[in-house]
């Protein structure tokens, strides 16, 4: 497969160059100032998160703009959004690993880290949005003295399991993939502290053939577990809505629609992160233009599949002839929240069309902007799905609008801090691109180049 495509990596560099280029990032950090600025911003957002959540816990969920009928808005909308962003990491790493798509090796490590951070942000919401968050553990099947179990028919219960499983598997997958590189960095570390730090987490990796054999089995097995999880987790998240009878939610298209949307937003997010990282850290030989080109094509493909979901959703409502479904459709097109629908359509699919052209795909700035547009577009889409369905459901008498309050925004912007802080720490302290996998690719590509 690789023979038909141009090489992903610059063939002039040696294997040692790859190691030095990536491995040196944590040890002699190249972009201290931008990183520090970003980190300060992330920390202030994190502070906002803690303030918002303290305020929320002090007074109750009433500090948000929620009401009856809009019981869920920002919290659930952002839960879905963050989780979707996270999925690209798993898809890039695990699915492409299993499919033998080598180009992934330059992207997978930080995509996986992004997954972990995003899933953490997502996982926070279902807890803080509770009326009585201090009882969140009642959703787990622990041996309660009263013998009460969770209610297993509830999509929320499925959610708990799906997200926790996903988080654990993602963590394992990310960590397993990291082990050989941790060993590399350990060996290159000069200071005792770094040596011990990386030494502990490298689990005594010595790079023996046996190690590699076992590692390969473990890594691929975990990958094989992780890929279906992406589908199951986001399908499950969609069931949170589709299991109800609320017009605009009650649809069988939801699981694939949500999974594709999640992948779409995730790839956009990867593009948004890859471009500044390769620029700031000088990793242009590792994350090459070919990577960006492939990423852009995947983004385009998943975007078009998501667009199919949009079309089908409209068709679905129109075909059903149900007055409530048609009413919701009408409200999405023309109601007071029409901006969220048309905003989503516009931001998700219009700039995306530029990716049909190679010039656009090769332009990192344009790709970055398109990625950003998609991330915002998907944010609007999740908001639209939540709010336009709930604010006008069945009984005319219960209809009521929703508008977020300062504390809604505070908690949202705060999770950006919750996302960025660990992610920036990861960039700073851990090899953010897989060294050994890139070397593998380089070696093979060089061999193939030499041969042909």
């Amino acid at each position, binding site marked *: 497969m690789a023979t038909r495509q141009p090489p992903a990596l610059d063939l002039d560099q040696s294997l040692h160059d790859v190691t030095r280029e990536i491995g040196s990032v944590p040890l002699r950090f190249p972009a201290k100032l931008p990183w520090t600025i970003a980190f300060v911003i992330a920390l202030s957002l994190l502070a906002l998160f803690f303030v918002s959540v303290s305020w929320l816990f002090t*007074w*109750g*969920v*009433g500090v948000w*703009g*929620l*009401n*009856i*009928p*809009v*019981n*869920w808005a920002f919290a659930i909308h952002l839960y879905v959004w963050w989780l979707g962003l996270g999925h690209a990491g798993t898809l890039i790493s695990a699915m492409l690993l299993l499919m033998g798509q080598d180009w992934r090796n330059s992207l997978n490590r930080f995509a996986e880290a992004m997954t972990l951070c995003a899933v953490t942000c997502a996982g926070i919401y*279902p807890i803080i*949005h*509770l*009326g*009585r*968050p201090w*009882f*969140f553990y*009642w*959703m787990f099947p622990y041996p309660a003295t009263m013998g*009460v*179990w*969770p*209610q297993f*028919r*509830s*999509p*929320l*219960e499925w959610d*708990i399991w799906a997200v926790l499983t996903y988080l654990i598997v993602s963590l394992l997958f990310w960590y397993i993939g990291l082990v050989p590189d941790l060993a590399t960095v350990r060996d290159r570390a000069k200071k005792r502290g770094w040596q011990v730090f990386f030494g502990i987490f490298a689990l005594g990796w010595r790079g023996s053939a046996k190690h590699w054999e076992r590692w390969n089995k473990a890594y691929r097995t975990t990958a094989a577990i992780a890929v279906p999880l992406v589908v199951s987790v986001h399908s499950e998240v969609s069931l949170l809505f589709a*299991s*109800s*009878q*609320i017009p605009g939610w009650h649809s069988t298209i939801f699981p694939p629609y949500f999974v594709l949307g999640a992948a779409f937003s995730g790839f956009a997010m990867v593009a948004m992160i890859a471009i500044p990282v390769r620029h700031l850290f000088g990793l242009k030989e590792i994350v090459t233009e070919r990577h960006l080109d492939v990423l852009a094509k995947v983004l385009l493909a998943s975007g078009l599949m998501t667009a199919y979901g949009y079309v089908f959703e409209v068709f679905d409502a129109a075909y059903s002839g149900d*007055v*409530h479904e*048609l*009413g919701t459709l009408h409200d999405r097109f023309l109601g007071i929240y029409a901006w969220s629908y048309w905003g989503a359509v516009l931001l998700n699919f219009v700039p995306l069309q530029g990716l049909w052209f190679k010039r656009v795909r090769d332009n990192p700035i344009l790709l970055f902007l398109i990625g950003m547009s998609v991330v915002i577009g998907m944010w609007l889409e999740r908001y639209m799905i939540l709010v336009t369905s*709930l604010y*006008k*459901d*069945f*009984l*005319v*008498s*219960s*209809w*009521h*609008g929703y508008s977020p309050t300062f504390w809604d925004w505070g908690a949202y912007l705060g999770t950006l801090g919750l996302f960025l802080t660990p992610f920036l720490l990861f960039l700073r302290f851990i090899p953010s691109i897989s060294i050994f996998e890139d070397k593998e690719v380089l070696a093979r590509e060089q061999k193939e180049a030499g041969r042909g």
Partner: protein
Amino acid sequence: MSGRLDIGALRAKLDGQQGRAYWRSLEEAAADGDFEEALKAEFPSQFEYWQTNRRELLRVMGASLALAGVAGCSSRRSDEAIPYVNRPEDAVEGRSGSYATAVTFAGYAQPVVATTHAGRPTKLEGNPDHPASRGATSLHNQAAILDLYDPDRSQAPLLKGETASWSDFDTMMAKLRRQWATNGGAGLALLIGPTSSPTLIRQLGELAKALPNARIHGFDPLEDFRRNATSSLFGRPLDIVPDLSRARVVVSLDDDLLGPGPAQVANVRAWAARRGEKVPAAERVRLLMAETTPTQTGAAALRRLAIVPSRLPLIAAAVAFHLGAGPAPEGGLSPQEAAWATEAARALAGARGASLVSAGAHAPQTMQALAFRLNEALGNVGQTIHYAEPILFAAPAGSLADLARAIAARQVGTLVTLDTNPIYAAPADLDFAALYGRVPLTIHAGTHADETAAASHWHLPLPHSLEDWSDARAVDGNATIIQPLVEPLYDSRSVHSLVSGLTGDTVQPPRDIVRATWTTLDDAVWHETLRSGIVPNSAAAPVTAAPAASAPLAYNPVDGGVEILFRPDPTIWDGRYANNAWLQELGKPLFKTTWENVIAISPAFAERLGAGNGDTLRITSAGRSVEGPAWILPGQPEKAVTLFLGYGRRNAGRVGNGIGYDAYSIRTAAAPWSAPGTVERLPGRTDIAVTQQYQSIDAEGADLVRTVAAAGVVAEKPEETDRASFYPAWQQEEPAWAMAIDLDLCTGCNACAIACQAENNVPVVGKDQVRRGRHMHWLRVDLYHAGGLDHPDTMFQPVPCMHCEQAPCEMGCPVHATVHSPDGLNEMVYNRCIGTRTCSSYCPYKVRRFNWFDYTSKAPAAIQAQRNPDVTVRGRGVMEKCTYCVQRIRGAEVDADKEDRPIREGEVVTACQQACPSNAIVFGNMKDPDSAVAKLRRSPRNYALLGELDTRPRTTYLARLSDRVDEI
């Protein structure tokens, strides 16, 4: 411990004490210093406590102790109060007691049975033995219980705003009495709110004899024109008593028969007797309404004509003309008006002796006279309507205007204002506040230190109806002895004691005064009267009277201008309920706004002004103006603007102060109900809190409130209930609780909503939270308009929890906090709820309510005393909703268990069902084929709300019946 005790000295000490001194140890009894020292060392905190003297401790604990008194056994009256049921020894803890009594509303008795828990009244129900109630209540009756616990009630006499004592007042009165005794009460004036109390009327009669020079004036801001009309027509004032249960045709000329007011329960009961399931089509009541501001009566009408007040006489004349009872009306009628008048006349002619023409309380005298004449001509008098001696007290010295003249002429030295608030509610053109300030001594007695209290020298607290003895008559004339259920919470004195104190030197207990009125009742009958809540044979006997000729109807067109109407607020009334949070938070029945009054304008007029809901309007009439928020009211005629009285209070209390505009400020004595005026739109907007934002039913909601043709009922298919479902069917155990709500009977009065609030400890959340869509009502009455904006159909639909057998909420909850009971209730387990709100998101009916904040724990202690101890008070972060009054079901189960029998039909009555004046709500076991609810569920009119979702609700609706020929 210290050295030995001197037993001899101790014995002497104890012997020397008076009364029974309790001591716990000999050391304590000796009270020697060593013991105290030892105690102080061992229990320092307790020692501090004991150091406080008892009197001081009581003062410190003030309010809370007063309430503890309410809850404690001391609140049981020592004087006789006979329980409603024959259980004088009802001191079983945890069991509630019931007492028949009455609360008053606009002077009339509202017969109720009050439920007490541990001596604490918690709920009012209608008195089933009383013809004016038949067990039902209005929203105002339901809310009256909250007034008892109003923390802003006046708690002690005030002298110039400072707390004073009753003995100070009595000293002053003694001097005044001596003075009045010599001059026959010259300079003394009384101003009395509307009252029907036979005792008070007797006392005032005696007062007038004892002090012939004293002046007794009456003031009711809502006094209508009927008394004047009957006086001039019959030569004496009479009450006009309609009996809707005997009327097949009712033509109402702006008379809100079914709307809020003291006669609401009686009228709705009677009207409902000719509606609903069992009434054959020919016997159904046909109601034709010509009105200005949309009312519940208009909503219930077969034909409603929207008309400005000035054109109403034309319509009335046209109806009379068609019936051959008058000349043709001058001036042309619009085709709509003519059609309405023709139809009304035809309907009346077809139901002679079984029809009723009713002119609104606010209609001018000539129209009242026309209505009397038409009823005479149609043979309705004695059938659907009769005359009776007036129930309310007629003040001999006249009205407030007469008092104002007397004050201006310096004839008033002492003014005693009893239970009325003229400073707030007086007509603006009297400038009464200035006159009031000129009276040398002003004494105000009321339940609240209101605007008049603030302007008076003395303010005296009156007790709530449930706190002291009194009596009153209901709209049908039947008297009720008002027996107290609880010791007065505050330092109040009954109005009877106050009036007797004007002439008598001793403060008589009110019970003795009331008993003295009813000397004809021997002790046995007296006891029976207290038990049943109705004085035997006290109903007003019909009197015969023939109307004299009256002046012809006058038509005074208002040229091109706008007519300004003044109407009592549907919930706050004339302002007396301004501090009642339940009534403030209840959406006004016809427009669903809360927490303030609005200026009702027509859609067409709003368009012309360019004003939307909430935009500030300035209304100017007779040189005075007031500003308030606009509210577009479908069905309001174009050139009419309605102002609602009762708001803009300054001294109502923490709930009612400073909200809304004061419509009294532009209302004149000459034109109290409608006046010409102008409207202008000002910059500025109020964000009005509504409990329902959308009211118009289009295609999307057409199926929600169903209407079927009366004649076509039998042809209708019964609701299909056994659709295929993925879920297993709910096991049908007995009993299977179900509710049926007959929309043909519902008038949208909202008594059910307030009854539910009182029964289930539903919190009040305030204007801001309502605006955010967070009101907590478990049962709401939805309001819908269909058809055009100018002549809409108005429909009501009470929506409690549907208790779906296939409940979407139960499937969604991750922690089993909402589950199904074997008897088919969809239950909420509050202490298991973690607040994911999935249940509410999934609920197609949106009947679930969420505690977004802590709405309950910071309520004033007095308000907490009202709460029903059988219902959990919910904390922050949990979901709540209608339970079908599960506490009543379980209570009935316990009773049935004890007697080893199944629960009987009718044994469980939900709070909403009990309150409903039209019996629109029926509850029971649907597995019992003979139960009322099972019968209704078999009706062809029965349908499930959103039945297509297949939630299999236990609450079902019966479609409205349409009497319209053109719809059939």
